[in-house]
Structures are given as C-alpha cells and as structure tokens.
C-alpha cells in the first residue's frame, strides 16, 4: 500500500475527530435484543407451573429449605409476568400464598383467612427475597446498554465467552436500580447477574446453571444466589416439574386467594 492510499483510508477518521462526529466503529451487538433473547430462555412464553425449591446456606452449612409451587403468566401481551406462589414445605407454612401482580404483593394465610398487602422489603422466605421466586421479564422493566465482551467463569465453573449488558431501571416496577447481566455470546443464555442498589452497592450475585430442555427451550433450572452484603449467605433456587398450564387471569388478584385450589 502506497503512502497516498494509506492517507485516504485514514481520512474519514481524521475528519471525524476534527469535526466532532462519532467515529465509525464495528457495530456493538443490540443490547436490548440480547436481553429479550436471554429473557426468552429464562422464562417460558406460555402460562406455566413450576416447583421451586429454595435451599439456604450459611458459612457453607445448609440451614433451611423451602418448597413452593409457582404459577406464572403475563396478563397482557408483552406485559410483565404475574406470579402466584403456594408454599408446600415446611409443613407449618403449607397452603400459604404469595401473589405478585405489578406493584401489588399480597400474602394470604389460610389459617387466618387474611390477605395482607406486603411491601417488597418484607421477606416471606428466609434470606431469599420475594423477587427471587417470582418470574420477571428484565426487558420490560430495564433498558439495556452494551458493556463489553468478556470471558467469565459460569455457574459450572467453566470459562465462557459472553456479552456484558448494563441494565438500568426503566419502569417503576423495576426491583433493582441496575443489573449487570452476562449473556452467553454463543447462544444468548443468561450466565451471571449482579443486582445493584441506587447507591451502587451490590445486593446479590446470581449464577444461572443446569440448563435443561423445559417447555420448548434449554432453560436454567438452578440459580445460585450469593448475598452481596454477606457472601456467607447463599441460596440455591432449584426449578423442577415445569408444566404448561391454562391459568385464568382471575387467579391473580386478592379476592381469588381464599378460593385458590391449585391443580
């Protein structure tokens, strides 16, 4: 290549720098599209039921276990999931219900017949927050920006090439101020997420793993959640018994809770 042709190639860059225009670059992947694809792997698109087992550890020792049945669906096309959770184990909590529909969060106790509105800060199940057991579309509540391409250690402790997405809350329903999400560069699977408060403080880290064919896609069936403030506290969220269910929309309101019978 002669010197003249070399300057011609550089010209657009020099012009851009001197004129203040953005530099032409290799296009970054569409962050929001990656987020939508990752959501579609985490969450089935049709109404479904799944058994959720939470196992809590402190300093490496198992200290508690809770089993729940979760029923989830979107109430409108493109809308956020509504989730109805029934406690199965321990026996003292069997039959209790938690309902999440938008900002509405209700707890129903069949013993007292009372439906109590609770705030997101009120936790019903050990160290896991209510948000850890509900189904949520990140793409609906967060705006994604592309971070970087990184190779990280996944939940099976293997190196994996990924896209790092930076999610910031875009609706009032968003539980976290921001999320860092790593998505598998090869297949868009979610690998890891760091959930952050307004202050930037790390609230929790989650690893998605044990991918299995469930309801039409390879989905993560276990999430390892590490507390951000106290990393000694770890919760395994195991999902089993996925099943598509024709769940009526009327289930997802306070007045239905006393009549809920499951299936």
């Amino acid at each position: 290549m002669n010197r003249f042709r070399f300057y011609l190639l550089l010209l657009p860059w020099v012009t851009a720098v001197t004129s203040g225009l953005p530099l032409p670059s290799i296009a970054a992947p569409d962050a929001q599209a990656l987020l939508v694809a990752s959501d579609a792997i985490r969450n089935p698109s049709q109404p479904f039921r799944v058994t959720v087992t939470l196992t809590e550890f402190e300093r490496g020792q198992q200290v508690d276990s809770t089993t729940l049945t979760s029923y989830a669906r979107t109430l409108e096309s493109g809308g956020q999931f509504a989730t109805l959770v029934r406690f199965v184990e321990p026996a003292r909590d069997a039959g209790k219900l938690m309902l999440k529909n938008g900002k509405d969060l209700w707890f129903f106790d069949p013993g007292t017949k009372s439906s109590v509105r609770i705030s997101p800060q009120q936790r019903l199940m050990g160290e896991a927050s209510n948000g850890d057991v509900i189904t949520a579309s990140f793409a609906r509540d967060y705006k994604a920006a592309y971070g970087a391409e990184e190779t990280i250690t996944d939940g099976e402790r293997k190196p994996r090439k990924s896209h790092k997405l930076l999610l910031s809350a875009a609706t009032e329903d968003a539980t976290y101020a921001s999320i860092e999400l790593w998505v598998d560069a090869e297949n868009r699977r979610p690998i890891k997420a760091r959930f952050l408060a307004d202050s930037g403080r790390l609230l929790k880290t989650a690893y998605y793993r044990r991918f299995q064919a469930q309801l039409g896609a390879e989905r993560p069936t276990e999430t390892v959640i590490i507390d951000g403030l106290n990393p000694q506290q770890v919760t395994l969220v195991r999902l089993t018994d996925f099943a598509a269910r024709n769940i009526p929309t009327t289930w997802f309101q306070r007045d239905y809770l006393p009549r809920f019978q499951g299936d």
Partner: protein
Amino acid sequence: MLAPPAWAADDAAALDLQPAAEPTPSKTDSRSLRLFGEVAAGRLSQRYGLATEDTRRASIDLNWQFKPSPQWRAVISDRLDDIHPVDAGSRSTLNSLREAFVGWQAENGRQAVDLGRLNLRYGPAYGFNPTDYFRDGATRAVTSADPLAQRENRLGTAMLRLQTLWDGGSASVVLAPKLRDGPSDRSFSLDLGATNHSDRALLAVSSRAGDSVSVQGFVFHERGKGLQLGANATALLSDSTVGFLEWSGGKDTNLLSETLDPVARVERRNRAALGLTYTTPSRLAVTAELEYNGFALDKSQWQQAVASYGIDPLGAYLVQVQRRQDIASRRAVLVYLSQRDAFIKNLEVTGLVRYNAEDHSRFAWAEARYHWPRVDVALQWQANLGRSNSEYGAVPGKRLVQVLAAFYY
C-alpha cells in the same frame, strides 16, 4: 471441641454447594389435610388477692379439603382445645367447627358459589377490623392474645355466598340467616347461635384503584339493627411501607347498653382504623394502628359507668366487647412488631402493645418462637397494666408466662 472448617466466602465456594437432599418432584402441593397439635403450660398471676394459677392447654387443629373435580370442593376445618383454667361459664374442652362447606367455581374462576359454614373475613387492619362484618361471636376459644393467632380459632358463619370476579375486581353477595338465639358453651356444640344469631346480608365489591392501591366497599344489613356502609383501602406507599384504612358507619347497638340493658339501644355511629406497616432493612416489621369505635365508651362515659354500676358489671362489658371482637374504648392504639431471624436463624420475635387512649391502660404481649422443620417452641409473656378502674387494670389476670410447643404434620 473442634471448630467447623472455615468456609471460603467466594463465588467459587458458593457454586460448589449442594442441598442435603435432592428436591422430590413427587411431593406435590395438593396436600388435602393440614394437621397440627399444640401443648402449652404457664403461670398466671392475678389481682384482687387471687392465688397464682398454673395454666395448661392442649389443642388439635385440622383442615381437610376434598376435591372431587377441579370445580368442586368440600372443606372441613376443626379445632379442639382443652383449656385449664377457664373463665366462669366456659367449659374446659371446646370443639370449634370453624368451617364445613361445599363450593363450586366456574372453570375460568369468574363465578363461584359457596354454601355452609364459611370463614369470610374482610379488613386489612391488624387489631381492629370495622369492615369484618362477620366477626361478632366468632371466637369460641381464646388461646392467644396475638390478634393474628386469634383469627385461627375463629368460627365461620353459616351462609350462602355468590361471587363474581373480573380482572382486577370482584363482587360478592352473602346471605347469613339466623339459626339460633345465642351462643352455647357445650363442649361439642356447633355453636351456630354464636355466629348466626340474626339475619344478615352483605354486598362486597373489590377493585384495584391504580397500580398500588386496592379498595373494597360494603353494604351490610342486620335485622333488628339496620344498615351499615363500609370501605377499606390498602396502598403501597414505598418499597418498605404499606398503609391501610378501614371505616364502617351506620346502625349498631351501643356496647354498654347491649351488656346491661334489657333491650339494647341502637345508635348510628362510626368505627375506623388507620395504620402503617414499615419494614426496616433488617426485616423488623413495625405496625402502628389508630382505632376508633363510636359504639364504645369514652373517658367520661367509662367514669360515669364505674360510678353508676361499679367495676364488676364493666367486667361483663369487657367480655361482651371481646365476644364482639370490638374495642372497649372510644379511641385506642395498637403497635405490633415482628422480627424474623432475630439474633439467630429461625428465631421469630413478635410483640404487641394495645393502648387504651381514654384511660391510658395497656396490654402487652411478647413471644419468642423458634422453628424447626416440623416443631415450633415458643416462650410467651403477657401483662395487663393500668389503674384499678381502667380497662386493663381491672382484668383479674395480671401477668402470664407460658411455654408452648406446636407439632406440624
């Protein structure tokens, strides 16, 4: 004694953790029988020179649901309490058939019919629920001062309920006929006279009123008393705060007149409760509730009643108020605290203070409860505090300390 091996608190160590037992998919949630037993023993110190007494209680609690098809269900809920000592006039063994009903609902869940004894409860407040129209006479055996625990013992009312639901709301019509004249203290009585002592009808409409507000409206009629209108609302005020409001106004009997007069005087008054629940980042939930009962005595009426009748008839007034699940004073305050995993994992500490804003007497109750997978063990303490002619200061029982164990199957 060897110290447990140190655990490296990093992501790699967390990823190596495995549950002690694999989840068992066959363990479904269609549990049709819930059963638990409870035993308690304590010591009660009393006023008026009465001797300190040992107390004991044994309870069996069952809830059985039979579903012959997805649309039909039959429910039996029963509790048997053996309590020593008991108040005069009460039996030591009391069976409470809380619920016995059959229910049908359409496949899409939009229409439902229930017939039988049904525990229908409304109202978001913790200690006093003006819109809970079927609370009158519903508590047959009082085994705990915790208002939330008291609701577990509550009798349902024999009724026909028709309900229709739409997305975000519902409407119900309830017809509850008179079946007996008054309550029974026989051990195994159905006690329909406690809950169905007059003809009553209720229309209830519920709706979401925005993203984080829910409201309910009521029209209630009781034969011989008249009409009451009511409303309640709950709202999420922030990520850590829930607010609630209840109001009911209309015709009901004056509580003192109901206790002392041959024919109770019907008045038009209001009842209301207003409160907040705030949860701290350390998961301490604090509820503060202001309560108002226009049918109860204010300070001057209480003093006048003491001067006219003496303190003993007012004891009957307090028993009647408890039977009605009302509050005895015109104005009262409730503070309720609950801390999960207090100090150590699985230890739950709960406490409440009821404050009579007219005579400044107080009732305090606290419990520390430790949970194992199928067993709870709790230590409870309660005290009635106040001057001798006040609501809580006049109660014979001064202090109670008891331990209890609950077994879940």
